[in-house]
């Protein structure tokens, strides 16, 4: 039985006085793709930020490979082996594609291997290689998403967090993104994926959670519940009539 790489227990996180996570518990299994679905405002991005160290939780715990990481600084979390591909991609717009990748490798001690990793990423994402010297801000949405993923990969993460990678992208590009997700999984990366596009997410996920209003409301495998039921709850939540 695979052990959980990431274990979140009773996590409470807030923005000032607004509690966005009201006691969230879930687990991400090593070597699998886990999805987090839910309507807007459910707290999915808050959970990603709490795990990545951007937001310090008020209570609860986040364990990564058995080690408590809740409340650590973002750069320390990257050092531990977690990388977040944020919602809205957040590339460095006036730096070149190459420099964006170099930034992703910033805290790696093995400087010599970085060149090799860049080559490998260029092989995986040929469009990025074409635009290597171009300013990242001039790339298309899909290309920026690929760059954001590639930058996160530069830190050689054991766990890749992805927050809405398909947001604002054309269907063909979305297909490509999800192909990349499955490729990364095949190469051994554990992936924790937040998505609005429940349909695509369920096609790749091994396990998924539903979140509503700061709490986890469902946990299961795709197929354990009818897809249209999932999609309904992911977009609309469980409305109490």
């Amino acid at each position, binding site marked *: 039985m695979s052990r959980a790489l990431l274990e979140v227990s009773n996590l409470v996180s807030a*923005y*000032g006085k607004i509690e966005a996570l009201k006691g969230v518990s879930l687990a991400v299994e090593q070597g699998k793709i886990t999805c987090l679905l839910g309507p807007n405002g459910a707290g999915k991005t*808050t959970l990603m*930020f709490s795990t*990545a*160290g*951007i*937001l310090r939780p008020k209570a609860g715990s986040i364990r990564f490979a058995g080690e408590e990481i809740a409340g650590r*600084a*973002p*750069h320390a979390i*990257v*050092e531990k082996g977690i*990388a*977040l591909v*944020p919602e809205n991609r*957040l*590339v*460095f*717009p*006036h*730096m070149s594609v190459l*420099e964006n990748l*170099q*930034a*992703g490798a*910033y*805290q*790696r001690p093995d400087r010599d291997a970085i060149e090799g990793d860049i080559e490998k990423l260029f092989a995986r994402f040929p469009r990025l290689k074409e635009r290597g010297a171009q300013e990242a801000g001039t790339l298309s949405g899909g290309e920026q998403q690929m760059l954001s993923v590639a*930058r*996160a990969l530069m*830190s050689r993460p054991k766990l890749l967090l992805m927050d809405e990678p398909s947001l604002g992208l054309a269907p063909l590009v979305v297909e490509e993104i999800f192909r990349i997700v499955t490729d990364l999984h095949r190469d051994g990366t554990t992936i924790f994926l937040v998505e609005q596009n429940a349909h695509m997410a369920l096609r790749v996920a091994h396990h998924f959670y539903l979140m509503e209003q700061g709490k986890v409301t469902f946990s299961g495998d795709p197929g354990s519940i009818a897809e249209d039921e999932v999609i309904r709850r992911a977009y609309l939540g469980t409305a109490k009539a």
Partner: protein
Amino acid sequence: MIADLVQNTLDGLALGSTYALLAVGFTLIFGVLRRVNLSYGPAIMAGCYAATWTHVHFGAGLIVLALIAIAGAVLAGAYVERLCFAPHRSTGAGPCAGSPVAAMVASFALWMQFEEAATLVLPRHLYAFPPLYSGGPLTVGPFFLRVEALVTLAAAIAICLLLGWLLWRTRFGLAVRAVIESPRAAELAGINVPSVFVRVFALASAIGGLAGYLVVASHGQITPMLGMWSTLKGMLAMMLGGLGSLPGAVLGGLVLGLIEAHSQWYLGPQTRDLIAYLLLFVLLALRPAGLWPARAQG
């Protein structure tokens, strides 16, 4: 007529290179931390006062005094950073994370501290400072070139080249540019953003300290007004060139120096300042982005 024009231009460039250095330091803090540091000049003054105190009580050579001025400015800057800027960080999630206004007013409070401390340590309004060069100006044809001005100009060029190398050719520089573009994205890439803040602050303070030393050594005297003067000139030049833009800071400094030199010659010292402020006001009303705008930041 032409001779005056050229002479004033030369003087203006010399003056402007000081302003450029001050503006660069100010801009580094603003561009990276997104904060206005009203204690920037006063920290520079603290460093120069430390050098003056050493000169008054022990006497020391030019290089030693320069190093003391720079080190003093860096120490004073670290004090400001810890007290005014570390508590008001803006990378942190949520709408309440970090207050730029509070940080700025806190930096003003420290400005008051530095000014009072300076008058307590060295009570006289004016102190002599060992001049950079004791001889007279060089004569090149009909023009006078003050040696101090040449040294200042050379120092400014050297600093700008050094800074350019630092920002575009080193790993630290990559981190700084990343933080300038997006502190959030830099955090996610594994960059220790608070550490970048501290180091940039120290760098800006050092550059400011050198600028202050050059001003004081060129004039051969120091007063407590150095603090406010440095902040004002730095801010003016930064806004002229374009908020947050390093090339803009250099350009703004040079333009400010040129305008001051020419206005002073034709219209006198009061009108000189009036024109500089008027120019800034008009520029802000018409083209707030400045003469060499920083690219819009996300």
